[in-house]
C-alpha cells in the first residue's frame, strides 16, 4: 500500500495551489504546472509500485534515481521559465518607465505654458 506521509504532503501541495488559484494569488499559467506536479506526486505516493515498474521499463536500476532525475529536470525547467518571465517583465517595466518619464515631461511643459493654471493644485 501507499506511502501515507508522502501522500498527505502531496495533498497539501495540491490544496495550497488550488487555494492560491481560487484567491487569484497565482496566475493559471504557473498553477497548471504545479497542479500537474502535485497530482503526479499524489499518484506516486498512493501507488509506489508504479515507480518501480516505470524504472524497470526505462532501464533505471534504482527507482529513486528516476524520481530524482525527473524532479531535477522539472525544477530546472521551472527556474528557466521564471528567469524568462522575469526578463519579459523587466523589459515591460523599462518601456513603462520611459513612457511615464516622457509623459510627465510633456505634461509639465503644457501646464507651464498654461501659466500653472488648473494642472497644479498646489500654488506657490
Amino acid at each position, binding site marked *: 500500500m501507499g506511502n501515507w506521509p508522502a501522500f498527505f504532503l502531496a495533498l497539501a501541495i495540491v490544496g495550497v495551489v488550488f487555494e492560491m488559484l481560487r484567491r487569484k494569488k497565482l496566475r493559471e499559467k504557473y498553477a497548471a504546472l504545479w497542479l500537474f506536479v502535485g497530482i503526479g506526486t499524489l499518484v506516486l505516493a498512493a501507488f509506489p509500485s508504479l515507480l518501480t515498474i516505470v524504472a524497470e521499463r526505462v532501464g533505471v536500476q534504482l527507482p529513486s534515481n528516476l524520481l530524482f532525475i525527473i524532479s531535477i529536470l522539472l525544477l530546472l525547467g521551472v527556474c528557466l521559465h521564471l528567469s524568462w518571465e522575469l526578463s519579459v517583465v523587466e523589459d515591460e517595466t*523599462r518601456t513603462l*518607465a*520611459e513612457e511615464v*518619464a*516622457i509623459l510627465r*515631461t510633456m505634461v509639465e*511643459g503644457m501646464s507651464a505654458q498654461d501659466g500653472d493654471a488648473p494642472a497644479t493644485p498646489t500654488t506657490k
Partner: protein
Amino acid sequence: MKILDSTRVLVIMPAWNEAESVGNTVREVLSVGRPYDVLVVNDGSTDATAAVAKDAGATVLTLPFNLGVGGAMRAGFKYAQRLGYQRVIQVDADGQHDPRNIHEVLAGLEHADISIGARFADRGDYSVSGPRKWAMQLLAKVISALAKTRLTDVTSGFRAANGRAINQYLDHYPAEYLGDTIDSLVVAIRSGCRVTQVPVEMRPRQGGTPSHNPVKSAVYLGRSVFALMFALTRKRSTISDPALAAKGAV
C-alpha cells in the same frame, strides 16, 4: 507634440546623481551658441540632479528608478523621435566631453548614421594600459572590421545619431552593462547603419577617477568579450528609414 524646427539638435545627457557637475555642463552646452536643446535624463537620482539641470536650462526627463546608461539613453531617443529631432548627440554629464566639440562630432553625420567622438585618435593625451587596453584594442579591431572603417574608441559615450540610427536604437538598445556602447553599436552596424569617427580630446572628469585596478580591468576585458560575442550573434533589426517612410506617406 513636435518641434517646429527640425534642424535643431537634441543633446542627451544621462545623469545619475550628478548634481555637482550637471549644471555647469548644461550651461556650457547652451552657451556654445548653436541650435542645441539639452535633455537631461535623470536616471533615478537621489540628489538634486533634476532641479539643478532644470535651473541650468535643460529639459529634464525623470525616470522613476535607475535604469543605467542604456536605459536612460533609450528613453532619450524615444523622446527625440516623438518630438521629431533628426539629430541627437549623447554627452556625459560629468563634463569630460567638451561642448565645443559637439558640432565636429555632428559633422560626421553628413556621411554616416552614427558618429563617434573618439579618444586615442591621435588627439589629446588620454591613455590606458593593461587588460583594459587590450579589451579596448580588441573591441576596436573587431568593430572596425565590421564597420569597414577605422574606429579607435568604440566605448566612447560621445556619440551622435541621425534619424535612421535613432530608429535602429529604439529597436535595440540594451540596458545592460556595455549594452549602450558595444552591443547597440554592433547591432546597428550589422543592421546597415554607417559609422564614422571624429577625433576629440577628453577633459578630466569633474568628479571621480578612472579605475586603474588590474582586477577590475581584467573583469572589464571579460565582460566586453562576452558582450561582443552576444552582439555578434544577435538578430539584425529591420530599420524603417525615416526619409523613405516620409516619402511613402506622401
